[in-house]
């Protein structure tokens, strides 16, 4: 009967639409393949690598390294640059399809290590004793060294040499303590330019706390000491610089980050990490600057912050052995030197220290901080708390440091409590 045929046609059309979209479901599309894990043999990959790239230079460097590894080992590697690394790693785990190897920052490391999501392979990797102790500490949880640090950066004091000489200052005037820093910043604050700018979050301010002999979390992450008098004094110093107008945060200078303010000469000095080199070269090539070690605190304590990522491998991965082989290749001294040349990071292995300093003499100040670098703030289950700390620090100019730190002490104590 006509209607049966007609009905069938309609059902067929509807089914066709669904089928069409389903047919495109297996990760295909207009571009290349998406990052679905292969189901090949356990050691032949292919491996999916998810990175949080700082730019085109880093992405192509990692891709080149992966290609070299593939040629040497026969294991295929697929490198994907994430747009939002944290979100994508999280979605990968939730979907049961995490990438085989991914960048993992110190904060997320704590969260994933706590829930048992990571494979603790670092002690079985090649030459684990070669890594800087502070980096090993950042990626150890419950006494186990989990993942291999891929590189690292520290903070240094970058000074615009043109502004420096225009203010009549000489290399002898480079500040080595807080008072000198304040004086120099005052001298350099003229016209539309401010003397110093720093990032407005914990990654830009915590070094002052350590320089004053304070501390935030114990090494075993079981005690918090945010509201100690040394910490309060350190924040009061930063607040004084802000109220004197010799220090401004990037948002007050209409810049997205402190490197941009420095490059546009809205600030004559900035406390920043190794990543300033790549940014200055590509965006502000005409600015001449020099990097020096950070000033020490009032009692002579030197401190800087270390920032690092590791190569994370999921505990439930079906390509664990191949992944470890890839990590060994990418974290080798030679490969790390190649990365350093491509996008300006410092190798995480002490054995290539001299090689690096010879290749990058202008950045020696960053590596000089290796002896006294403190790990970046990280606590399992503490991501929200840390970002709350950041948003409070951004308002330091109008806040009361003692109240700020005691509120943070309460919050972090609560998280530590939950972790017991």
């Amino acid at each position: 009967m006509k209607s049966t045929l007609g009905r069938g046609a309609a059902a067929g059309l509807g089914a066709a639409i669904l089928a069409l979209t389903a047919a495109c479901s297996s990760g295909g599309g207009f571009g290349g393949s998406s990052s679905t894990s292969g189901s090949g043999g356990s050691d032949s990959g292919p491996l999916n690598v998810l990175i949080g790239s700082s730019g085109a230079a880093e992405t192509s460097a990692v891709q080149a390294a992966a290609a070299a590894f593939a040629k040497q080992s026969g294991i295929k590697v697929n490198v994907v640059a994430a747009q939002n690394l944290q979100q994508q790693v999280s979605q990968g785990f939730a979907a049961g399809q995490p990438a085989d190897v991914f960048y993992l920052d110190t904060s997320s490391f704590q969260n994933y290590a706590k829930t048992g999501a990571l494979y603790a392979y670092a002690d079985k990797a090649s030459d684990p004793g070669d890594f800087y102790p502070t980096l090993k500490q950042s990626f150890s949880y419950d006494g186990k060294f989990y993942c291999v640090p891929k590189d690292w950066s520290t903070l240094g004091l970058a000074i615009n040499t043109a502004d420096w000489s225009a203010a009549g200052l000489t290399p002898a005037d480079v500040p080595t303590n807080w008072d000198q820093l304040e004086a120099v910043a005052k001298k350099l604050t003229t016209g539309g330019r401010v003397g110093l700018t720093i990032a407005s979050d914990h990654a830009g301010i915590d070094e002052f706390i350590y320089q004053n002999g304070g501390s935030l979390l114990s090494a075993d992450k079981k005690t918090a000491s945010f509201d100690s008098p040394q910490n309060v004094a350190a924040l009061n110093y930063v607040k004084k610089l802000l109220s004197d107008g010799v220090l401004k945060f990037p948002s007050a200078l209409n810049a997205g980050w402190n490197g941009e303010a420095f490059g546009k000469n809205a600030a004559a000095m900035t406390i920043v990490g190794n990543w300033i080199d790549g940014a200055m070269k590509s965006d502000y090539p005409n600015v001449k600057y020099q990097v020096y070690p950070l000033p020490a605190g009032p009692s002579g304590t030197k401190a800087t912050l270390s920032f690092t990522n590791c190569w994370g491998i999921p505990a439930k991965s079906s390509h664990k052995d191949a992944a470890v082989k890839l990590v060994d290749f990418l974290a080798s001294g030679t490969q790390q030197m190649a990365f350093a040349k491509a996008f300006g990071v410092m190798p995480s292995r002490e054995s290539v220290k001299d090689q690096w300093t010879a290749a990058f003499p202008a950045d020696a100040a960053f590596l000089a901080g290796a002896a006294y670098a403190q790990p970046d703030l990280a606590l399992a289950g503490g991501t929200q708390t840390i970002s709350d700390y950041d948003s409070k620090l951004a308002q330091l100019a109008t806040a009361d440091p003692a109240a700020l730190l005691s509120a943070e002490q309460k919050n972090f104590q609560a998280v530590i409590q939950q972790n017991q």
Partner: protein
Amino acid sequence: MTTATGTPAAARAAKRPAPRRPRGGIRGHEAAAGWLFTAPVLVLLALFLVLPILMAAWVSVSDWTGQGNPFSGGAHFVGAKNFSSLLTRDGLARQDLMTSLRNNFYYVLLVVPLQTALALFLAIVLNRRRLAGRGFFRTAYYFPSVTSSVAISIVFLFMFSGGGVVNALISSAGGTGPNWFADPDGLIHILLDKLGVHSAPAALANHGLLGQSWWDWLAGPSVAMTALIVLAVWTTSGTFMLMFLAALQNIPAEVEEAALIDGASAWQRTRLVVLPMLRPTLFLVLTLGLIGTWQVFDQVYIISQGNPAKTTLTPAYLSYTTSFNDQQWGQGAAIAFILFAIIVALTALQRFVLRERKADAG
């Protein structure tokens, strides 16, 4: 539409007795066809609206850590723990939720009346007979509603940047504009500051509700939030203007003329005749406005991510970051349900407040 008289079909219809008497054949097919026709929509709504809600309900009372299937053995029932840490237990989770609720409350408080009033005003002015360029104006006012929130957010990021268009306009008028998206000061605090109240009075600062001091609750929208408010009003007033225009066009001219003959002035006509007849549309616009403004997410995601100082944090964005960035899926789902409850409650409240009272109906 041509009538059927004189065609063979009509002749047949005339001969056949009572064609509307239910006959098993056509009616049976009709029922089956009815279900078949609605089936795709029903299946999709069940799969992608009902099922997600049920799943989220389970996750919000479990401790799922974000790995694997939440229905597998891995996730355990923890009762109302997620809800209590958001609503009753003193801590960062509750603080953040209350901050986001406060921010969204001020956003709603300003956006809904402004966009409704602006839409109504434009619709009334555009409703004049013999208006030159009506089509042009209608298009101009409606066009922002057509563009995506991403594109609009980019334009507003540019316009409200520290050295951007808006501040250039303000300085050409002799003032200095604030650094819009970096300024966390609440408008009420700024106003009080101008009136001489420079810091929180003890009574307001030391007492509070649900973890926030009264001084914090009364901060008003921050300057950054104000930029987002302008964005919202600019984007959505066009859609509501069209709705009001449609309703105005449906008011018969005789009603207005009758009012005229009775001697009513233009303002009286608007207030006593036009507005009451617009009541259903006003109702709809307010409801849609409430539902929309409590869900603001896209603009926060693109422009500010809750900054500065969490003054542009909204419950929808908080729910997203709690789940995807902080790996607290249970808490994120709980925030989503709390938001759902708020929207339902407010919509019901609005229906109650604006209902047709029998006494003054008609």
